[in-house]
């Protein structure tokens, strides 16, 4: 809260006569003016937009959501065909966004912790390699990295010359094929990908687009998490380690019981904002064509012309998910991170 204003803050029981020199009166007038300007601007834009829409013959509204979308979505967790509605396509997009973000978050945290610890290693080669990983990934645009990874995926051999390191594992320009576990008559069985004429059939298929997005998001975010982990561990006062060893705790116990719990307090808040960034950055899929929320939105707006509605829906979805993630994280922070800080 601003100390400047607190200084002239109104006492509870002074003269309540209205006066222009009373800071409360001034504040009230200012606020009315500012809110008025804002409302006026919004109204002006709204009026202008309605006129524009009418003169261009665009019917606004959300009824398009029930119309048949007519485009295919190459990968979907929900059942979907081109005869399904735009609304259904949107749902597929949201699920795909959540899918790539969730897996991406797990991968980014694991990789980030490994690299962060490597960065602190006393082994010179290890810490140097980790350092350059962080520098390169942080200092180039994420979109560029995604396009790079996508080029790499597409430069892989064709299906017929697929890289075949393990039984049932095939890596080609059509993506990665893995054996999957299926159920046949109540008995689990291994489902191996089989090479057909143009592609593999069966098993688990990871498309180049999904793989690109996952690798791109996870490696990029991991670089930021690594820096957070490193500075978190370094932030723990050296006296803490010394005090712990003076008490006779082993190196491992010192790390486990004294250093890590304190480092986590420093690490968790910025990490959560990195995870939120990963979620938001998944929208860059629009550049490589993985059918998540943003890609479905742009396809929809190109086909229907309902630009305003499509964008507003997409932004609302991102907003809702972001806000719920940060609310969840904040309450977690309050319970775990701030515990014992007397605040």
């Amino acid at each position, binding site marked *: 809260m601003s100390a400047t204003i607190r*200084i*002239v*803050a*109104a006492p509870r029981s*002074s*003269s309540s006569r209205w*006066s222009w*020199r*009373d*800071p409360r009166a001034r504040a009230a007038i200012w606020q009315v003016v500012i809110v008025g300007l804002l409302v006026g601007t919004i109204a002006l834009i709204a009026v202008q937009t309605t006129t524009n829409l009418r003169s261009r013959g665009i019917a606004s509204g959300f009824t398009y959501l029930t119309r048949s979308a007519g485009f295919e979505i190459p990968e979907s967790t929900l059942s979907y065909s081109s005869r399904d509605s735009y609304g259904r396509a949107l749902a597929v997009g949201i699920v795909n966004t959540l899918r790539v973000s969730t897996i991406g978050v797990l991968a980014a945290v694991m990789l980030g912790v490994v690299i962060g610890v490597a960065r602190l290693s006393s082994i010179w080669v290890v810490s140097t390699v980790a350092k350059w990983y962080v520098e390169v990934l942080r200092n180039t645009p994420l979109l560029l990295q995604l396009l790079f990874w996508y080029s790499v995926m597409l430069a892989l051999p064709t299906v017929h010359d697929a890289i075949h390191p393990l039984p049932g594992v095939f890596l080609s320009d059509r993506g990665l094929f893995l054996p999957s576990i299926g159920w046949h008559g109540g008995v689990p069985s291994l489902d191996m990908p089989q090479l057909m004429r143009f592609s593999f059939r069966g098993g688990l298929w990871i498309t180049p687009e999904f793989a690109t997005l996952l690798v791109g998001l996870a490696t990029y975010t991991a670089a930021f998490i690594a820096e957070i982990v490193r500075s978190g561990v370094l932030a723990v006062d050296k006296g803490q380690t010394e005090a712990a060893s003076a008490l006779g705790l082993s190196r491992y116990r010192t790390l486990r019981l004294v250093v890590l719990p304190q480092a986590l307090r420093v690490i968790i808040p910025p990490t959560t904002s990195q995870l939120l960034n990963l979620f938001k950055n998944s929208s860059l899929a629009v550049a490589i064509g993985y059918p998540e929320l943003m890609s479905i939105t742009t396809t929809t707006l190109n086909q229907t012309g309902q630009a305003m509605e499509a964008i507003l829906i997409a932004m609302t979805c991102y907003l809702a998910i972001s806000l719920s993630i940060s609310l969840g994280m904040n309450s977690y922070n309050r319970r775990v991170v701030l515990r014992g800080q007397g605040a």
Partner: protein
Amino acid sequence: MLHVDMQNVNKWFGAHHVLRDVNLSVTHGERIVICGPSGSGKSTMIRCINRLEAHEKGRIVVDGTELTNDVKKIDEVRRDVGMVFQHFNLFPHLTILENCTLAPMWVKRMPRRDAEEVAMHYLNRVRIPEQANKYPGQLSGGQQQRVAIARSLCMSPKIMLFDEPTSALDPEMVKEVLDTMVSLAEEGMTMLCVTHEMGFARQVADRVIFMDAGQIVEVNEPRAFFENPQHERTKTFLGQILH
């Protein structure tokens, strides 16, 4: 006419009653030293005089102006009342000279040349004109506090408030600041000083005030105050700080 007049002043910080019915009248040129244990409300009391804190009950009249919500009157009072803080509060991004010329230029609309002349005059008085173009961070604590005094004086205040001006200083620097304050007192400035420098109180104070738990417990002229305190709490306090 009274220079500062406080009548039945009360203030709360939330549920904490920090000032209880404080009554204090200060005449022109009077020098008052206020002491008391920490949390007794002594700082809050003098901060009410230039409305860094707003009182919630009672009346405060400073140099004929009553302090209310009226911003214009608050500005008037602040122009006439200077304040020196425990932690100097110099503006670290401005030079010593700029610290001193800021208010005359922006509040009194004084031309830069005149403001600088005034500033150099007061920097001379606190005996650090040669530091004018340095930044506060390059000065010792004692020097910074003397600059803070000069900065206040540049507004030609009629009343000076001192809020523990020497408590944050290394012992060897206390004297230079006290000397400056003594010379101010000798010129007839109305002064209210929160301080535990009892030597200073003996030397310049017209009255010494002892506060405890938000109340003025005892007021007396210095000799009687130190040699013959009336209240048990005053005795205890003096016993603690004098030995």
